[in-house]
């Protein structure tokens, strides 16, 4: 058998897949790298799609994860506009949707997630949109003209960010949330309440505890969202933002261990030694919290891309990071670190009324589990450090803005 340098195929050219390709070269991978992506564009940053891109403040160049020339310079083969259809682990062979077959020595699954579809009448009307890629964002941007009426189904981060952008573009925005508060699954009650107030003060209507019955249309186009209580919310554009589903069907069919996502360890290895998985499609260990879970975030995509690249290049795994997230809504910069599993106590530091504060979540032993900071970068950075150290902090000191966080984090 001739000694070919080993080939890595990365299936999925989102933030995780694109980063993995770059880190592999940075860490010295000499073999082939093929990056397969379903979208027509090379890897790009999704976070600006709901913000700067919608508002026309970003360009394709600024959105790109790397410039177009990077891939040729780094000898990374891009196969765009096609996706993985068959994964034959025994033969280490893939079949792509364009019909071509591709062998691999090592495979990185970076399959991402897709927007959860709304299983209700009217979901197929024109003007009903989701937001995942640039095509979605362009459709949304075209719709959000001054005077347009946007209804967002789902009060998650994407929904709130788009509502804020819609207001900036001169469109009306209503956010419809099934739970009693926005961000019910991903944020604490204090932050939810603050953001509801902040959005209402800036002209976004927020309806909570609302069950959508149907989207009503006229001539095939959305005209209103009908709630179960009979309320009719007029809208010409409806954004469905009710969460994402990990793309793990192929992995499951191929017999890889899957839970809520493709099960991986802290080196991003799956149950098949030749296959790694990274990003939104994985269920990963959360070492600080003694459990496993799925993290849909750019920092997680990058962290796991590093884990896979390091392992493939024979490097020690990077030290585990504190999960973190960010969001921009109006002039509010949100930065969150840690996960508030088993939180028993919340401490607010700073001034909510002045739009600058942080909410710390502590467990029963007063260990800092998570921080949610609004226009409070120092508190965010300190909180991230406190979470990493699993530091115990007296709530009264945390609350006292005269006590520098530097002292508490020392």
């Amino acid at each position, binding site marked *: 058998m001739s000694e070919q340098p080993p080939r890595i195929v990365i299936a999925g050219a989102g933030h995780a897949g694109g980063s993995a390709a*770059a880190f592999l070269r*940075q860490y010295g991978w000499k073999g082939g790298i093929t990056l397969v992506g379903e979208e027509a564009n090379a890897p790009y940053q999704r976070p600006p799609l709901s913000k700067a891109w919608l508002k026309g403040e970003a360009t394709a160049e600024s959105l790109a994860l*790397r410039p177009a020339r*990077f891939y040729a310079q780094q000898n990374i083969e891009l196969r765009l506009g096609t996706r993985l259809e068959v994964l034959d682990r025994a033969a280490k062979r893939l079949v792509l949707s364009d019909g071509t077959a591709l062998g691999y020595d090592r495979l990185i699954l970076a399959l991402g997630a897709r927007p959860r579809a709304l299983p209700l009448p009217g979901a197929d009307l024109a003007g009903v949109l989701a937001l995942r890629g640039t095509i979605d964002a362009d459709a949304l941007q075209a719709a959000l003209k001054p005077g347009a009426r946007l209804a967002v189904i789902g009060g998650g981060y994407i929904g709130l960010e788009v509502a804020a952008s819609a207001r900036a573009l001169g469109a009306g925005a209503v956010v419809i949330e099934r739970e009693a508060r926005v961000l019910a699954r991903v944020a604490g009650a204090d932050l939810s309440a603050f953001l509801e107030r902040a959005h209402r003060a800036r002209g976004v209507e927020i309806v909570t505890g609302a069950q959508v019955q149907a989207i009503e249309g006229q001539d095939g186009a959305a005209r209103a969202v009908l709630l179960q209580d009979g309320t009719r919310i007029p809208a010409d554009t409806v954004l469905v933002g009710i969460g994402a589903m990990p793309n793990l069907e192929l992995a499951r069919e191929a017999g890889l261990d899957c839970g809520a996502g493709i099960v991986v360890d802290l080196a991003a290895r799956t149950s098949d030694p030749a296959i790694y998985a990274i990003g939104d499609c994985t269920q990963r260990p959360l070492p600080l919290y003694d459990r496993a879970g799925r993290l849909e975030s750019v920092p997680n995509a990058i962290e796991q891309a590093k884990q896979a690249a390091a392992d493939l290049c024979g490097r020690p795994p990077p030290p585990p990071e504190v999960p973190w997230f960010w969001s921009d809504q109006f002039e509010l910069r949100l930065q969150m670190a840690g996960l508030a599993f088993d939180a028993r106590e919340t401490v607010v530091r700073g001034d909510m009324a002045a739009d600058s504060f942080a909410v710390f979540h502590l467990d029963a032993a007063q260990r800092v589990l998570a921080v949610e900071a609004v226009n409070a*970068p120092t508190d965010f*950075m*300190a909180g991230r450090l406190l979470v990493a150290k699993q530091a115990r902090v007296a709530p009264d000191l945390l609350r006292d803005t005269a006590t520098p966080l530097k002292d508490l984090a020392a």
Partner: protein
Amino acid sequence: MPSVTYIEHNGTEYRIEVEDGLSVMRGAVDNGVPGIDGDCGGECACATCHVYVDEAWLAKTGTPSEQEASMLSFAATAQPNSRLSCQIAMTAELDGLVVRMPEAQH
């Protein structure tokens, strides 16, 4: 095009031409220079593009904004010449800029 010299913690140097207006972070990331991550894409939200600006260039690169200074205040390896490289935009005036990378960004 103005150039930047990036010096890795281990001493490896990279001289890179960076287009006017692009950030010093983008210059590194776009050219595969290790040691600058830029996880948030240049939003001054993550502090993973930390560099030490060579003393000779401190006056020309200016001073960090309040947001940037806050982010830097908790970087484990911060020094008085620390900057977040996503917040330094290249100009002709910065041609020849020298920055050094800390041992780790995380």
